[in-house]
């Protein structure tokens, strides 16, 4: 597994993230990249309280993350970066490279969204953005590490009128 994991998950820190990713890969550092959470002390406290002791949590805005993560030194530590939406992932795409495992974990069902997997529901605009990212890097749908991941390849068909 690559040492840096970027994950789209609209629940941010929850059970699958802690038991599935943080504990499974012994992740040392979690970045929660979200403008709303970053500006709210109560939300910060709630998310900080839900992590197991010994795991460092950095909560920052998208702009702060782009600035700080770009300057980050290579490390042997496992790092998990959590964003809430595909739009957020698209905003930080300049940081992506082949050493990063890009994974969509959970995007909840809403009106006018298409069921991509049993936990991922995307609208056409989000599918378009995933396609653009996928042009350069592999993108996977992966709930928890011990389940099979699905590489996203066929979204272009969806965009070509097969929605």
């Amino acid at each position, binding site marked *: 597994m690559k040492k840096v994991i970027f994950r789209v998950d609209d629940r941010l*820190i*929850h*059970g699958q993230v802690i*038991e599935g990713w943080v504990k499974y890969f012994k992740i040392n550092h979690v970045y929660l990249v979200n403008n709303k959470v970053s500006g709210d002390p109560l939300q910060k406290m*709630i998310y900080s309280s839900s992590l197991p002791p010994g795991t460092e949590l950095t909560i920052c805005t998208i702009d702060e993350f782009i600035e700080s993560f770009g300057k980050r030194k290579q490390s042997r530590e496992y790092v998990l970066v959590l964003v809430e939406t595909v739009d957020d992932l698209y905003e930080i795409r300049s940081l992506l490279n082949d050493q990063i495992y890009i994974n969509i974990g959970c995007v909840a*069902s809403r009106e006018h969204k298409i069921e991509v997997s049993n936990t991922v529901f995307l609208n056409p605009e989000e599918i378009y953005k995933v396609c653009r990212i996928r042009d350069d890097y592999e993108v996977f749908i992966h709930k928890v590490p011990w389940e099979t991941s699905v590489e996203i390849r066929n979204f272009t068909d969806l965009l070509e009128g097969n929605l």
Partner: protein
Amino acid sequence: MKNMILALKSLFYQANLNHENMQGTGFAYMVEEAAKLKGVELDEDTKVKETEYFHTHPFLANFILGMWVKEKKIGGEPDFYKKVYSSAFGALGDSFFWHSLRPLCFIMSALIGYNDPFLGLLTYLVLYNAFHLFFRFGGFAIGYELGRDVIIFFNRINFNRWPKYTDTLSTFMLGFFLSFIVKESSDFNPLVLGVSTVYLLAGLAIARKLDIVFGLILILIITGFFLYFTGV
């Protein structure tokens, strides 16, 4: 009494768990009665809205229910904090109840059930449900009292550390149980017990740094070399 009925009703909370709205139906099923209990009237739109996607740890859902009703009553942001807490309580609840408490209860049950299977089964049910029912039955009142600050309760009891403490106790009890089996099932041999203990400790040490399967393979290889070179 009405609190008790609400808690009992919450035992059916997950009956309609599904991929589309997860526990949303369960939350909507609970919310009307919970609101009525605190004198909050809900219109039809709100009741329908509460069937939307919602997923948390089921044993901690009543805390969110209490918080939601309090926020609704004071004109706060019930749905916003419902989403925030659903994630956080999912993390806290899964870590403790599913991944730490269950193994501990199993080990305790196996230890006590070694001589009396019925008592072992009873141990599991009592121990597991003592925690489960405490959180389920106390959740609504605490959630309502603290409202959006309900996380304070979990910080006060250091709940995010409970899995670590429970895992430590489980490991100790597992060692105790294995020693007990070695002693009980054959002629007591201190060498076998000593070797087993070294294996267990080495396995745990390697698993902490690497991986449990890799740790096992490594120990087997080292043992193979040891046996080969000592001519066993």
